[in-house]
């Protein structure tokens, strides 16, 4: 596979761009693999990549029922940050953040990770207590974080409504400067290309219909493209985890909900950072194309429809105008929905299961995209070593039995 660079662009331009190779092969599934990853989203592709790269497990298949990156990877608002409250979550997301910081070079694919800084606004005294607590914890965990005042926000963020007369005045914010956004599709494509290069088979249009077991251990999967044997099956299918779990006779502490988002028409630069507000229930950034990328809330009901209810969108527009009154005349171009698998403690499950050789990585709620490389990294370790890495050990299924939940509702809330 040719390396991507400005040079290769020019060279190929001269040959009228007819010499580019395919970014990843589309092989027929083989009858057996050392490991199968179910789910060709960012997390699944990253898992395969790190299995091959970090653990030398290259005889791997990624099975995707549709097209890779077609689930939440291609539907989210691309925010990347690691300023979580509890140490367990912070260290996991921070590990991911460190991978993000070198990802374009590692994959030789520009995922456009842009560290524009993320503000989490505080609107009440309790918001500010929580922000102080979280920022202090982040710093002790070696994660860059600071508390900024309303005055500082007024200076840093043009047009934001810092009036003390606002319905929910901005009292301050937490700021993580290393946080930012990335190009979501590129993450899936970049991992796919890099994994393919290391020998991973990426098989699209291949839906898993059953998880084969012999006694208490997994033996492979049935798919719409035939039986595929493997001693190890890692399932990472946001928006479908409960369904796959049922195939293996497991029940998960997960409910799937619609999560909506919208973009405006492309505008000249107006918002240079990422602004999130839990109290006012909205978050916003501006893409390199100029579109305002805006996250809405989770719809209350269970839903696999990849769409939610209009009042949720209306509320989000109110919230955005509350934060940025100047955006009232800007227009929504497109709205859409994804499916988020929500855990009781707003933290993921990255875990072995009662079934030997079967591993689950799910329940990321609204926090999946930012964790993509880290999630794949620890999941690859868990599958390769058949035991969790210390970073994901706390995110074992067992925690729901022992009660050792990691309650990130405060830091997660609506906005990610």
């Amino acid at each position, binding site marked *: 596979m040719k390396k991507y660079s400005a040079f290769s662009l020019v060279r190929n331009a001269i040959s009228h761009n007819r010499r580019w190779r395919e970014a990843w092969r589309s092989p027929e599934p083989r009858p057996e693999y050392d490991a199968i990853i179910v789910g060709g989203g960012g997390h699944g592709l990253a898992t395969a990549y790190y299995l091959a790269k970090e653990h030398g497990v290259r005889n791997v298949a990624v099975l995707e029922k549709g097209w890779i990156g077609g689930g939440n990877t291609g539907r989210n608002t691309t925010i990347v940050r690691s300023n979580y409250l509890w140490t367990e979550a912070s260290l996991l997301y921070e590990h991911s953040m460190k991978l993000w910081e070198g990802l374009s070079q590692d994959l030789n694919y520009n995922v456009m990770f842009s560290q524009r800084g993320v503000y989490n606004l505080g609107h009440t005294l309790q918001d500010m207590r929580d922000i102080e607590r979280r920022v202090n914890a982040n710093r002790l965990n070696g994660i860059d974080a600071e508390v900024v005042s309303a005055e500082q926000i007024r200076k840093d963020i043009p047009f934001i409504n810092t009036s003390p007369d606002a319905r929910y005045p901005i009292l301050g914010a937490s700021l993580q400067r290393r946080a930012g956004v990335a190009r979501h599709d590129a993450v899936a494509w970049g991992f796919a290309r890099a994994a393919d290069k290391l020998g991973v088979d990426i098989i699209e249009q291949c839906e898993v219909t059953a998880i084969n077991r012999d006694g208490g251990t997994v033996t492979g999967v049935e798919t719409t493209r035939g039986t595929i044997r493997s001693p190890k099956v890692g399932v990472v299918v946001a928006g*479908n985890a*409960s*369904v796959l779990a*049922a195939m293996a006779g497991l*029940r*998960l*502490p*997960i*409910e*799937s909900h619609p999560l909506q988002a919208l973009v405006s028409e492309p505008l000249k630069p107006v918002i240079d950072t990422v602004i999130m507000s839990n109290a006012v229930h909205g978050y916003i950034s501006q893409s390199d194309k100029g579109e305002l990328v805006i996250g809405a809330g989770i719809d*209350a*009901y*269970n*839903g*696999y*429809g990849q769409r939610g*209810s*209009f*009042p949720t969108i209306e509320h989000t527009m109110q919230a955005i105008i509350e934060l940025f009154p100047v955006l009232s005349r800007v227009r929504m171009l497109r709205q859409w929905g994804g499916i988020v698998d929500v855990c*009781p403690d707003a933290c993921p499950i990255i875990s072995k299961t009662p079934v030997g050789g079967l591993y689950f990585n799910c329940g990321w709620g609204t926090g999946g995209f930012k964790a993509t490389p880290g999630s794949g990294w620890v999941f690859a370790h868990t599958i390769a070593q058949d035991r969790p890495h210390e970073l994901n050990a706390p995110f074992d299924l067992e925690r*729901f*039995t*022992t*009660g050792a939940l990691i309650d990130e509702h405060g830091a997660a809330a609506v906005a990610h």
Partner: protein
Amino acid sequence: MLLIECPWCGERAETEFSYGGEAGIARPADPDALGDAEWADYLFNRSNPRGAHRELWNHAQGCRRWFGVERDTVTYRISGSFRLSGGVGKRED
């Protein structure tokens, strides 16, 4: 925006209701008799099906009654509402 039929008030807009999650999860009669895993199953695990789902809704802005709804979680089509009695999710008639 969903159109939900309250068994008492008739069809109303979704915004009048609050959602109560999966129906039919009865509280164990004797929690102390349960192992941690069984208790956790009651507490956290949900069937979360892709398709027909029996769920609880509360007519929060209306008559404040809790009732059951059968809804498809993919098409969002509602096949019917039902009153509750004698515990979660049991049909009255």
